[in-house]
């Protein structure tokens, strides 16, 4: 379109984006600054943006201070990945059923599914704990994976259903005409076609699973080796000191993997939301 921005509009846009990004990134900046400060300099006012004793020390020392740190980061990734895989295994068939098949109580049950979003894990914590105990899952990865999966299923179904609905019905009918079974069609036609949708949903599930690892881990797991990063970070809180610089360094280090995943897939994600989610 020829409707170009004037110089002032352009400046305004960049200024606006600048302010917006400042708001978004400020905490990360603060975390980064903190990670650079030596422990005895962390609490020093007035606020300093730079001082000679800033260094990347914390990034090396944190591995010694909490020897399991690497393990925690790995746990986080492992748990999020497992949640994603398990959730997708459950979500894909269900989303397909809701997109394509007719069965009694279809809309009602979908509504019930979606209403799961109304329950915070915190509200159901005690009964969940009992359940985990009865199933013998306490202090295993499963205790952190399974509740995570359950709370992500509804949104996943809802998102993926949108993609499945976008696949022309004729694709399936054509395969059906050729004698392909439902599973064959699902495998050879539907899933490849829903590829971008699967990426979007899986990424969303992964990110959410990564972001919400605190409550279940703290409650259902007491095995120090299995903790995800957000819980592992608490180890920087000592009896006498909180090692803020190392904690922030560890936090920033720990979020890099997921940021990388996101960076890699964000193209699909933004485009994918246009295609799938925003249909209503």
């Amino acid at each position, binding site marked *: 379109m020829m409707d170009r921005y004037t110089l002032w509009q352009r400046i305004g846009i960049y200024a606006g984006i600048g302010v917006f990004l400042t708001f978004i990134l400020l905490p990360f900046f603060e975390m980064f600054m903190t990670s650079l400060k030596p422990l005895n300099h962390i609490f020093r006012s007035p606020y300093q943006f730079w001082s000679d004793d800033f260094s990347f020390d914390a990034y090396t020392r944190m591995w010694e201070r909490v020897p399991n740190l690497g393990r925690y980061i790995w746990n986080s990734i492992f748990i999020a990945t497992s949640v994603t895989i398990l959730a997708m295994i459950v979500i894909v068939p269900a989303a397909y059923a809701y997109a394509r098949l007719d069965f009694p109580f279809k809309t009602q049950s979908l509504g019930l599914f979606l209403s799961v979003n109304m329950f915070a894990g915190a509200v159901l914590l005690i009964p969940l704990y009992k359940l985990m105990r009865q199933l013998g899952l306490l202090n295993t990865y499963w205790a952190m994976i399974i509740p995570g999966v359950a709370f992500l299923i509804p949104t996943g179904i809802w998102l993926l259903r949108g993609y499945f609905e976008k696949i022309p019905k004729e694709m399936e009918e054509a395969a059906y005409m050729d004698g392909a079974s439902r599973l064959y069609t699902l495998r050879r036609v539907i899933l*490849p076609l829903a590829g971008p949708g699967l990426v979007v949903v899986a990424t969303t599930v992964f990110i959410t699973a990564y972001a919400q690892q605190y409550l279940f881990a703290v409650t259902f797991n007491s095995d120090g080796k299995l903790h995800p990063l957000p819980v592992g970070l608490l180890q920087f809180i000592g009896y006498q000191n909180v090692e803020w610089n190392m904690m922030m360094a560890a936090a920033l280090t720990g979020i890099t993997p997921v940021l990388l995943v996101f960076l890699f897939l964000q193209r699909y994600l933004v485009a994918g939301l246009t295609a799938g989610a925003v249909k209503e």
Partner: protein
Amino acid sequence: MATLELASITKDFGAHKVLSGIDLAIRDREFVVFVGPSGCGKSTLLRIIAGLEAATSGRILIDGQDVSDAAPVDRGISMVFQSYALYPHLSIFENIAFPLRVARLPEAEVKAKVARAADILQLTDKLALKPGQLSGGQRQRVAIGRSIVRNPKVFLFDEPLSNLDAALRGEMRVELSALQRDLDATMVYVTHDQIEAMTMAHRIVVLNKGRIEQFGSPMELYHHPATRFVATFIGQPNMNLIPATVAGTGAEGLTVDFHDGTRMTLPVDPAGAHPGDRVEVGVRPENLRLGQGLAMRLRVLERLGGTTIAYGMLADGLKLCAALPGDTTVHEGEDVGLTFTPADAHVFDAQGRVMRRRQAPALAA
């Protein structure tokens, strides 16, 4: 290769009756086209034949065998969809090979069959591409390729050309006709484009509101439309309908009075008509010519080269359309007279039924 019979097929969607009492017998190697306005049930009927949709009642016989309950693949039919339904993630080769893969044919056989289909459809050098890299007409051919590798007894097409532009549509029309002859196949073809119907069909089924209005060859429909609906639906531009009153009946036919007072005797079977009855006289634009007769003011002229289509209005507001020779020198806004040969007229009674024409042209083929 096969005959196809439909016996009193009906279809309801809930309370909505979409098809009622469809009886149809399609001959071996016949090219039958379903036409009709949007929503009349063409696609539904085709899908019932394909087995994609279950009929509410009625039976389907292919080669005399009842296949009403058979799965599509067991009916020996194949179908080409309006959207082509190509698999964008598979190569052209794999698209065409899809039915063979489903049937788990050995690789060599798959290769041979796909090669043959590709050869027929001139797709041999495109086999490695993806559907997204092909033009509309080529995609159309891939869809056909997928349907012929299985050697079905009956081919079904649902508006296969409607996504193509005019020039390509004309081309594909010719190709499809040739293909039908080459494959010696029975084909059922759905369209709402009556030019396609007229040019391709051996016989045409005109559907309206879930019923068959008429089933016959194109020329039969053109010259002997059974109803007012068929008459106006077939032929482009549409047939003009001029209201008139029956003045009398006789051996030469029906005598009618037009609103402007003109009286004319038309050579049709006047059975059941009584003086004073209101009828409509149908005249195709191509049967109107300049001359003493209906006085029309020209509104718009469309000069197509070989012909000029003249749109205008009679004094009483009735819109008429005439196809005049391309070299006619008339102007928009001019008043002209239009006349026609009585033998070219169709007459419809108040219920829209035709009165049989006596001097219709001999039917081709």
